[in-house]
C-alpha cells in the first residue's frame, strides 16, 4: 500500500511522533512518501518530495517557473491535471486560482497512491480535491491549532475539506467533537488514536509520591500564548503568599519569553521561577526525576504528550480543565484538574497534594503510571495507525 503524507516540512529529528509513525508504517510494508513544503538536509528512510518553490517578489522567475511546472504536469499527468482544474472550477474558483492550485499540488498529483493523508487539517487547504483526482482515499489528522484556533480567524475554512475527506484521525474525543461542530459529517469514518509514549524511556522515579522542600514544580512546553503560562506564574505568586516554598522550572522556548519574564519580575519571583529554554531529552529526563509536581495550565490542548510523560515518570500532575487534558488525566485518580484561568483553584489542588500522605500520593502516581502502560503504549498506537490505513 502506498501512502502519501502531507506535512509543512519533512519531520526533524525532534518530531518523534511523525518520525516513528512513518518508520512504523514503512516497517509494516507500507510505502510512505512525505510531501513537504520544505526539505531539510536530514537523511530519511522515507521518500521526501518537496513542493515547487514560490519566488515571492520575483515576478519574472515565478512566471517562468509557473509555466514550466504547469506544462510539465500536463505532460506527465494530463488527465489528472484537467480533472483538478475542472473540479476547482465546479467549486467556484476562477481559472487563474484553479491553475494556482494545480501548481501548489504539482509535486503530488502524478503519484499513484492508495492514501493521501494530511498531517494537519490546514495542510489540506487548497488540496481538497487532489486525492479524488488521483484516485486515492483522503485522510486527515487533527491537531489543536487547526481545530481550535485557525477556524476562528477563517470561519468555514474546512467546508470543502469535509466534503472530500474519507477518514479522519483525532488524538482526542474532544477534537473530533469540535470538528463535528465545524461541519464534519458524522458519517465520515473516524478513528481516535491518542498520542502514546515509549514507557521504557520514562522510568518511574524512585522517590515518586514523596515531595521535597522547596517543592519542585515543572512545566515543559513552548512559550506560546496557548500554554497560558501567566496563570502558572499567578499560581506561584499565590503559593508564595500562602507560605509554600517552591522552585518552578519552565523548559521550552518561544516568542512569549519577554511577556513571561516581565510577569515574573512584576510578581517578584525571579529567584523562584527559572526559564531553562530548550533542553535535550536526557537533560529533561533528569529534571523530571528531580521534580515533584508537573503543572500544565494551558488554555487548550489537543491531548498533551508532556503530561503523559510526566505521569509515566511518577510526577503528580495538576492540569487545566482544557478539553484534551480532561481526557488525559482522570481527576483525583491519576492527577488533578483545575479551572484553567483560576490561579486559586490550582493552588488549592497543590496545597491538597502537600497535605496528603506519601502513600496517598504514591497511589495516584502509580495509578497514573499503570494507566499509561495499559492505554498509551506506543506499540498499540503503531497497530492502530496500520489499521487506520488498512481498513
Amino acid at each position, binding site marked *: 500500500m502506498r501512502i502519501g503524507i502531507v506535512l509543512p516540512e519533512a519531520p526533524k529529528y525532534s518530531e518523534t511522533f511523525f518520525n516513528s509513525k512513518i518508520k512504523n508504517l514503512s516497517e509494516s510494508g507500507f510505502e510512505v512518501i512525505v510531501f513537504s513544503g520544505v526539505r531539510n538536509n536530514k537523511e530519511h528512510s522515507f521518500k521526501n518530495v518537496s513542493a515547487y518553490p514560490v519566488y515571492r517578489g520575483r515576478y519574472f522567475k515565478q512566471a517562468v517557473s509557473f509555466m514550466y511546472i504547469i506544462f510539465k504536469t500536463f505532460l506527465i499527468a494530463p488527465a489528472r491535471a484537467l480533472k483538478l482544474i475542472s473540479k476547482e472550477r465546479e467549486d467556484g474558483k476562477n481559472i487563474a486560482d484553479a491553475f494556482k492550485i494545480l501548481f501548489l499540488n504539482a509535486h503530488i498529483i502524478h503519484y499513484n497512491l492508495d492514501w493521501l493523508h494530511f498531517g494537519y487539517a490546514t495542510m489540506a487547504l487548497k488540496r481538497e480535491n487532489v486525492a479524488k483526482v488521483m484516485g486515492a482515499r483522503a485522510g486527515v489528522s487533527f491537531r489543536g491549532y487547526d481545530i481550535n484556533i485557525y477556524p*476562528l480567524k477563517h470561519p468555514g475554512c474546512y467546508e470543502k475539506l469535509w466534503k472530500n475527506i474519507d477518514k479522519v484521525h483525532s488524538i482526542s474525543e474532544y477534537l473530533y467533537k469540535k470538528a463535528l461542530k465545524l461541519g464534519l459529517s458524522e458519517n465520515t469514518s473516524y478513528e481516535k488514536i491518542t498520542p502514546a509514549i515509549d514507557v521504557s524511556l520514562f522510568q518511574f522515579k524512585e522517590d515518586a509520591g514523596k515531595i521535597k522542600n522547596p517543592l519542585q514544580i515543572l512545566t515543559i512546553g513552548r512559550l506560546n500564548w496557548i500554554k497560558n503560562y501567566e496563570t502558572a506564574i499567578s499560581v506561584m505568586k499565590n503559593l508564595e503568599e500562602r507560605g509554600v516554598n517552591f522552585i518552578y522550572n519552565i523548559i521550552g522556548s518561544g516568542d512569549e519569553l*519577554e*511577556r513571561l519574564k516581565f510577569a515574573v519580575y512584576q510578581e517578584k519571583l525571579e529567584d523562584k521561577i527559572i526559564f531553562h529554554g530548550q533542553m535535550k531529552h536526557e537533560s529533561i529526563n533528569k529534571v523530571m526525576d528531580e521534580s515533584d509536581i508537573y503543572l500544565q495550565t494551558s488554555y487548550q490542548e489537543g491531548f498533551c504528550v508532556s503530561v503523559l510523560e510526566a505521569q509515566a515518570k511518577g510526577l503528580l500532575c495538576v492540569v487545566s480543565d482544557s478539553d484534551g487534558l480532561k481526557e488525559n488525566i482522570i481527576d483525583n485518580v491519576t492527577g488533578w484538574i483545575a479551572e484553567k484561568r483560576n490561579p486559586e483553584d490550582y493552588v488549592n489542588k497543590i496545597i491538597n497534594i502537600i497535605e496528603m500522605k506519601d502513600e496517598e500520593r504514591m497511589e495516584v502516581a502509580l495509578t497514573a503510571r499503570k494507566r499509561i502502560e495499559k492505554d498509551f503504549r506506543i506499540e498499540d498506537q503503531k497497530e492502530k495507525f496500520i489499521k487506520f490505513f488498512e481498513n
Partner: protein
Amino acid sequence: MSENGFEIFLFGKQTKNVSYKGDVKLFPTPESKIRLIFFVIKQSLELLINSPGKYFQISKIIFSRSPEIKNYILKAGLIFPILNNEPDIFHIQWAKTVERNPELMEILSCKLALSLRGAHINYSPLNDKVLAESYRKYFPLIDGFHAVSEAIAKESLRYGTVKEKIQVIHSSVSDDLLKENSELCEVGNEIEIISIGRYHWKKGYHYALDAMKILKEERIKFKYTIMAQGEIPEEILFIIDDYKFGDEVKIIKGMPHKELVNFLKTKDILLLPSVEEGIANVVLEAMAVGVPVLTTDCGGMNEVVKENINGYIIPVRDPKSIVSKIKEYTLTDIYKKKEIVNNAKNFIHEEFSREKQIADFRKFYFSLIK
C-alpha cells in the same frame, strides 16, 4: 514647543509625508537606497567642508564598529544631518537608540536629553541583557532624562540613571477635550464598559475578559467593547469563543479621534486592565471628558487615579477585583459619581494641561543649558 520660543529640528528616517506648524525644520533621511546614497554624499561633503575633524572622527567611530560600507551609509544617513545642524540639545525619544546608535553619544558635543517611556524601560531590558548593559554604559553620558511617570523614573535607576538628572513631565490632554462633557447618568439595564488601546499583551484584555466571564456567570448584565486597530490576536479570539460570549462582548476597530471621544462618552466606564503602562493617554482623556475610569495599578497609573476620589484603581492581574469594582460602581449614587468625574476633570486641568507640559519642558531644557 515651537510656538513657545523653541526651534525644533526633526531627524530620522522619513516613511511618509508629514508637515508641522510652527518653527519645525525637518532633516529627513531618505528610505530608498539610491536616494540615500546621494543624500550621504551631499551630507558628507557638507560635513567635510564645515568640520573636517568631526567628519574623520565619526567615520573612524563607525568603521571601528563595522567595516561594511552598507553599515557606513546607513549610519551616515542618520548621523551626518545631525552633525551638520547640531542643535543646543539633542533629545533622544526612545531609549533603545543608545544601543542602536551609540555613535551619537560619542560624537555629539551638544547637551543630550533622553525620554524614559514605555517598553524600552519597563520590560524590554528584563529579557534583553545586551540592551540593559548598553543602557548602563551610555546613560551616564546623558545630561538629562525626561520620564513620563514617577514609576518609570524609579524603574530607570536600575539602568544607570540618577535621580537628580530625571524630571517627571506628564503628557497632556488638549484643552478642547477639557471642554467636553459626558452625560453622566444612572447605569441602565446593562453597564456599558469600554477598553481602548492597541493589541498587545501588556494591555491585559485577557484579564478583562476573565472579569466579564464572572459577570456573566453572576448574571450581571453588561456590554463590553474592546476598541483597537489591527488584527485581533489569536488569544483574544480564542477566549471570546471559549467563554461563549454572545453580543455582550464586541471588538471594534479604532475611529478618528473626534468620533472616538463621542463614542467613549456614551459608555459608563472606561476600563484599563493593563499589566504595564507609562501613563495611559486614554485614561487621561476619559477623565477630561467626564467618563469614569477603572484602572489597574500598573506603571504610573496611581499617579493619576486616586481610589474613590477621581476614579477607581485595582491590583494588576486580578479579574475578581475588576468585577467587584464594577458591581460597586453600579451601586454608587449619582451624586458620588458626579463628584468623582468632577474631581477627575479638575485634576487633569491642573496636572495634565498643555500649558503645564510646555512649562515643564521649558524648565527641563533650560536646566540642561545651564
